[in-house]
């Protein structure tokens, strides 16, 4: 799971409380290489929460990697854009946990895949057919 994905996951609860951003605990992290695309990054900057990305970096112990506040004219700052690219797309959380800050519910990350299923849905997804059928 890349940090771009952490940025758009949440735990929205039935009582209306929003669990966001999710606490990220990583026990195994890989680095991958992704293609750099400036236009894509700028569009994502508009759409994503920059402070949540910074928070995520902090939680995995890489906090000095990007400035806490988004620099002005960042599109002209080549070093910044490279680091942003790396932070969003090249850090792959292989094992760990996402934790809802409101309820404490844990969502495991295994083999790079965050599991956002709630418990009853997990039962549905195991091997047998749903009981009602």
């Amino acid at each position: 799971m890349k940090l771009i994905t952490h940025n758009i996951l949440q735990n929205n609860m039935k009582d209306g409380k929003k669990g966001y951003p999710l606490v990220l605990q990583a026990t195994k992290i890989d680095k991958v290489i992704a293609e750099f695309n400036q236009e894509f990054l700028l569009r994502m900057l508009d759409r994503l929460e920059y402070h949540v990305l910074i928070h995520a970096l902090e939680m995995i112990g890489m906090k000095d990697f990007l400035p806490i506040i988004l620099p002005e004219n960042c599109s002209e700052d080549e070093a910044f854009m490279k680091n942003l690219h790396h932070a969003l797309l090249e850090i792959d959380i292989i094992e760990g946990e996402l934790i809802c800050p409101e309820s404490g519910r844990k969502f495991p990350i295994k083999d790079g895949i965050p599991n956002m299923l709630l418990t009853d849905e997990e039962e549905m997804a195991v091997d047998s057919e749903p009981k009602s059928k």
Partner: protein
Amino acid sequence: MCTGLSEKELYISLSQIDGYHSPKLYLEQYITPPNIAATIIKFIDEEYQDIRGKNLLDLGCGTGMLSIGSCLLGSHSFGIDVCQRALGVARENISRLGVNDVDFICGDITNIKQFFIPKKIDTVLMNPPFGTKDNYGIDIKFIDAAISVSCNSIYSLHKTTTRKHILEFGEMRKLQTNVLAEIRFNIDNTFKFHKKKSVDIDVDLIKFEVCD
């Protein structure tokens, strides 16, 4: 990623994608045939520029045919499926193909608003369950989920026999809805009780345009 792949090259790569190891019938687990996936993805890229440089979500991604295929043409992809085993195969597929720009998430799309923040996605591309067996209505739930996350275009495959129903739904949600292509789909004998070796079905590629 190399973004200049031809349809043929894309097809050759997608042929290496492994399918479901023990498909579950009630989840309609069969892969989009690689030739069809390659044609559709190339078509969307060339005709509508909705692949390259876009962030793309594949709902019910299974073993990753559409999300990985889009990635090979330069999208950043996300795939969501309820089945962890299928996603395990999807992860193997990306390492085999050397694709990195894709993340898989295990989740139930009928509950997508609980875990996925709305309106973050450029393009949704999906081959949802047809919902013509005892899972009636699941196709509409997939479109609904797509509408909640997308801020631009949704491309979805539906059985041609359900066309009227799907178009009416698009109209009801006030989306511009068009049938882009009719495709003959050949589904391998994934499920043992099919007597024939494979079955042909007619499928529509439908585009919904979402305005913010």
